[in-house]
């Protein structure tokens, strides 16, 4: 087999609520740290490979601001942009792509109606469709986390009786072009990625796999790649200025991982 030359991607994720970054912190040299476009430009200058906006806007009336943010970002930042959160239909995908998104993440709506994945892939191609999988370990009868992974919806708040590994495999079969694998157990802990989860999903799918949830230090990223991730995503460590993208890439490079 010939060499695979693609670099491991480092992705920065921004939570966006009604067009504003959630919990904005003040970076030096940023006019407005609450403006997703300003932050996107900062991450781009740091060498980020891709951007993800997670739209957490509760009110559908405020969604217009999301489209505006996507358009303004696409006009100023010339790297791939994924937008997820609240995507329920083919029309939602169409609007986001027209606004300037390159990829669209679906989660809850695809679990409720898996055919949505095929509908989106047939219309726009698999490469635009990211299956966003918020995964938790099932809690056993003894109250401890088991090695069994289940899906959740609504930002991890609602557990679903659906095996996460099987669901990722099925979504890829239905046409998802990439899987954004977010460990809800690791999320916020800053203790590192859930490596077992990454390895289990890697063994089940051949589409690109983005590891998310748990990044707290530069040394956390290379093990996720070793476990099978094609890309690593972080939000808060970048967002709070604790790590720069360049630091993460340097740490990956030091472990022999190819980065841009």
């Amino acid at each position, binding site marked *: 087999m010939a060499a*695979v030359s693609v*670099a491991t991607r480092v992705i920065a994720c921004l939570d966006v609520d009604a067009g504003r970054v959630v919990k904005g912190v003040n970076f030096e040299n940023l006019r407005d740290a609450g403006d997703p476009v300003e932050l996107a430009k900062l991450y781009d200058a740091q060498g980020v*490979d891709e951007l993800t906006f997670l739209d957490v806007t509760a009110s559908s009336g405020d969604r217009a601001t999301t489209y505006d943010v996507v*358009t303004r970002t696409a006009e100023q930042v010339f790297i791939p942009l994924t937008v997820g959160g609240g995507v329920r239909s083919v029309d939602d995908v169409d609007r986001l792509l027209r606004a300037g998104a390159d990829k669209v993440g679906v989660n809850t709506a695809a679990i409720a109606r898996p055919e949505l994945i095929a509908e989106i892939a*047939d219309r*726009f191609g*698999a490469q635009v469709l990211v299956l966003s999988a918020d995964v938790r370990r099932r809690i056993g009868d003894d109250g401890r986390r088991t090695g069994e992974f289940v899906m959740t919806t609504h930002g991890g708040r609602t557990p679903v009786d659906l095996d996460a590994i099987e669901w990722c495999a099925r979504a890829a079969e239905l046409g998802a072009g990439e899987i954004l694998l977010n460990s809800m157990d690791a999320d916020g802990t800053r203790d590192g990625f859930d490596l077992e989860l990454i390895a289990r999903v890697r063994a089940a799918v051949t*589409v690109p796999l983005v590891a998310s949830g748990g990044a707290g230090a530069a040394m956390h990223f290379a093990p996720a790649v070793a476990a099978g991730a094609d890309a690593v995503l972080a939000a808060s460590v970048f967002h709070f200025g604790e790590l720069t993208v360049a630091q993460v890439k340097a740490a990956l490079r030091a472990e022999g991982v190819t980065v841009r």
Partner: protein
Amino acid sequence: MTAPAARPHVVVLDYGSGNVHSAVRALERVGADVELTGDAAAALAADGLFVPGVGNFHACLRGLRAADGPRVIDIRLAGGRPVLGVCVGMQALFDGSSESAGGQPEEGLGQWPGSVDRLDAPVVPHMGWSSVRVPEGTRLFAGVEDQRFYFVHSYAALAWHLHPEGAFAAVAPKVTWATHGTDFVAAVENGPLSATQFHPEKSGDAGAHLLENWVRSL
């Protein structure tokens, strides 16, 4: 680089293919006067024609044909007028693709011999930034030969069959290669007809430089 005196007029062909917003902005950023339109007369008149393409080969070809794209491209090339195809906009230039459309291979525009086939790699789609192997004398890659570009595709031209001989050898196409599991054609410069499998409009500064090279050649 200094800006050209006049801004070359570029038409981004709008035939219903995905996110073309970024291509328009990226071309404007490097000095082109850009018009997004599906109008054949405008596409014929432009200094440069940018042919985008994302998604399914069959769907793209259907859209391209509905916009009279094949005839527009033929007439432009007969007159030596530049055309740049990107992603499926590049794939469309080959004889055809094995990307399934109800099990039937789909015919392409036939500007170049050979077909577009599925990548054979452990992870497909090929999604991310890859390096390329650039031949001598390329104009598109001048100054960015050693950079990575952003790819997102499952199919590609895995072989190149156009090798002109004799009097035509001097104008042999410049073929740039990349590897994802297997070698594939990442870009071609063939007289007025150029194409990239990657997305220059999404490839940051390296992509902007490549687009600027193209715009300045118009």
